[in-house]
């Protein structure tokens, strides 16, 4: 039985998520402690800034209470507080949740791709710590393969969902590659800084910053690893850079159409990408019509974000449909493996019953020749049901495969004994066993 206890941005406030997060270097110890909890045989802990997911396989149902208690104790939290803010899933629902989490369907930003890497990392740590076993190994490998398939077939992560991301997406429509590009920042406010950081994260390496107050430009230039220039030098810089990012508090536009037109010749046809995130706008809208100049204001970016969110929601619906199939496939495997030991135990027991019966009749059989005795023993053994019959009893067998009587691959932990057993054998043996 797989049990999952977790908290995410919907179930728990940030303050609690921060305190509940288990640091990466403490994970192996935490996994070991979680495995000490009664009945937990395998465990994986995913802990990011937005979620904590404790995935465990336990021999018996109802492990959620113990896992909640473990989380409270491990992080020094009030149990009642943990109980209020966590969710728990068991069995198939738990597996379904892990599939959804890894695909970013449960993320604050729908379909964000980082979470898959975080789940992979969490699994690696658990595997290295020896905390995983056959079931969670299989579950997570299945999840990773499914996440990859879902991402390529739905394209969920492709659509921009933040203004900074939208700007980078638009830039990629113009430039081959953002690496090594130069950018000019007009204004040293919070918004420009955020957008600039995102561009830098995309590989834009040459940042020039200017501001009416030079000192603020210099401070931001230090923070971003760029260079600051005096405000009145920016028109010349327009001739040189690939990207212009404006976000000043000016009441009227600071970049005119004439200024941009004047540098076009010097740019020799190099495209100029201008993002104006200021309100009111910093760049005259007429700049738009210039050949080779691509100007976007905050509404344009928001439009890309809205379209991206829409696309992601559509993709998420499709992803959920695909994941349902993956969950079913995983479940089929899980049932067979979880019943494997049960089937083996049941078969051993039935063989035991057969041996006991032979011993009970030993005196009456004493007159038989060794060949006859061997034949009787053989009969008792082969009268025990075959694996396929157990699977039929548990509703696991494919009906048509059974009807045709085709051979099936044996399931883990339950080898099919050789020899043909008569099909009515099991009932007789079971009844015989109960009668005594």
């Amino acid at each position, binding site marked *: 039985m797989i049990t999952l206890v977790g908290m995410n941005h919907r179930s728990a406030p940030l303050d609690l998520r921060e305190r509940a997060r288990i640091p990466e270097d403490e994970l192996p110890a935490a996994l070991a402690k979680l495995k000490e909890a009664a009945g937990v045989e395998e465990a994986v802990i995913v802990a990011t800034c937005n979620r904590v997911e404790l995935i465990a396989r336990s021999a018996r149902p109802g492990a959620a209470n113990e896992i909640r208690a473990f989380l409270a104790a491990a992080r020094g939290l009030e149990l009642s507080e943990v109980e209020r803010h966590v969710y728990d899933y068991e069995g198939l629902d738990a597996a379904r949740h892990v599939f959804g989490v890894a695909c970013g369907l449960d993320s604050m930003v729908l379909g964000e791709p980082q979470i898959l890497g975080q789940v992979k990392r969490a699994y690696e740590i658990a595997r290295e710590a020896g905390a995983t076993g056959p079931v969670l190994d299989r579950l997570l490998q299945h999840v990773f393969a499914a996440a990859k398939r879902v991402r390529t077939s739905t*394209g969920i992560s*492709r659509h*921009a969902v933040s203004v900074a991301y939208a700007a980078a*997406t*638009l830039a*990629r*429509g*113009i*430039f*081959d590659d953002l690496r090594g590009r130069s950018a000019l920042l007009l204004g040293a406010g919070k918004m420009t800084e955020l957008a600039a950081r995102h561009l830098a994260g995309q590989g834009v390496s040459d940042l020039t910053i200017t501001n009416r107050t030079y000192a603020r430009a210099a401070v931001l230039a230090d923070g971003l690893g760029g260079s600051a220039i005096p405000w009145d030098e920016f028109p010349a810089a327009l001739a040189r850079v690939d990207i212009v990012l404006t976000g000043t508090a000016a009441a009227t536009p600071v970049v005119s159409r004439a200024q941009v037109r004047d540098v076009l*010749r010097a*740019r*020799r*046809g*190099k*495209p100029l990408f201008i993002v104006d995130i200021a309100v009111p706008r910093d760049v005259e809208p007429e700049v*738009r019509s210039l*050949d*080779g100049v*691509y100007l*976007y204001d905050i*509404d*344009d970016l928001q*439009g*890309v974000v809205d*379209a991206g969110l829409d696309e992601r929601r559509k993709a998420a619906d499709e992803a959920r449909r695909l994941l349902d199939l993956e969950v079913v496939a995983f479940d089929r495997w899980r049932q067979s493996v979880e019943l494997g030991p049960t089937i083996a135990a049941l078969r051993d027991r039935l063989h035991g019953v057969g041996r006991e019966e032979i011993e009970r009749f030993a005196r009456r059989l004493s007159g038989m020749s060794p060949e006859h005795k061997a034949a009787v023993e053989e009969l008792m053994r082969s009268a025990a049901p075959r694996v396929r019959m157990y699977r039929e009893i548990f509703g696991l067998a494919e009906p048509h495969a059974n009807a045709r009587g085709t051979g099936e691959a044996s399931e883990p932990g339950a080898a099919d004994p050789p020899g043909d057993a008569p099909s009515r054998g099991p009932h007789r043996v079971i009844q015989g066993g109960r009668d005594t």
Partner: protein
Amino acid sequence: MAHALFLAALAALLLGAALAGIGEWRRREVAARAGAAALAMAWALEFVALTVRGVTDASVPLRNGAEYLLVLGWFVLTLHLFLWFRSGIRALALVLPPIAAVMVAAAHLLPSDARSGNGPGKIWFVFHTSIATAGMAALAVSFAMSVLFLIKDRALRARGGPKLLTRVPSLETVDRIGFQALMWGFPLLTIGIVTGMVYNTELHDRLWTWGFKEVFPVLAWGVFAVLLWARFARGVRGRRSAFLSIAGFGLGLLTLFGMVR
């Protein structure tokens, strides 16, 4: 036999263009790959068919408008397969195979009674036609990239918010490929015109006869010359470049009138 091969090539080309285009647009990997395979098959079939016809008729199969379009379509297909496998720019499948398909399909609609190429100066005829056709194929790639450029440019400037049009590569990419194609196409076109004049002299004892086959290539050459001059001397790129490249290729295609009349 050549005829059956040509028909098979056309069928494979139409099928391949449709599969590759749909596969790329709807992002269906299987369709895209099947399309690429069909296009490769069409390329091979067309090549064999042209060779068979050339050997049977003991001539380069570039003797009339129909044959010109067949070979031009084959060249465009060659460039498509080369670029597709080498550059990994998948969106090429949206434009180049359809262009090749239209050329080859049109070839089957034109009268194919062989006319030119059997007079004196045969060697010049071979030179002239094959070089001019290869040049036009490169210019067709430049044309296709210009069309993609305008589509992408327009989407990025759309009123009511930019469209991303992620299936079309970045403006820089289409500009780069189009320019490279132009840098191959323009010299080939130049050589084609000069060898054409030499062939003309052999045939008619005159350099210039005011036929469509002379006027349109020279007009196209003039447009491309302006385009290149503007780009190198003035740094003109973008939409104006794209319009010139489209106009130049269009003028070049009008040469066909001189071949079917």
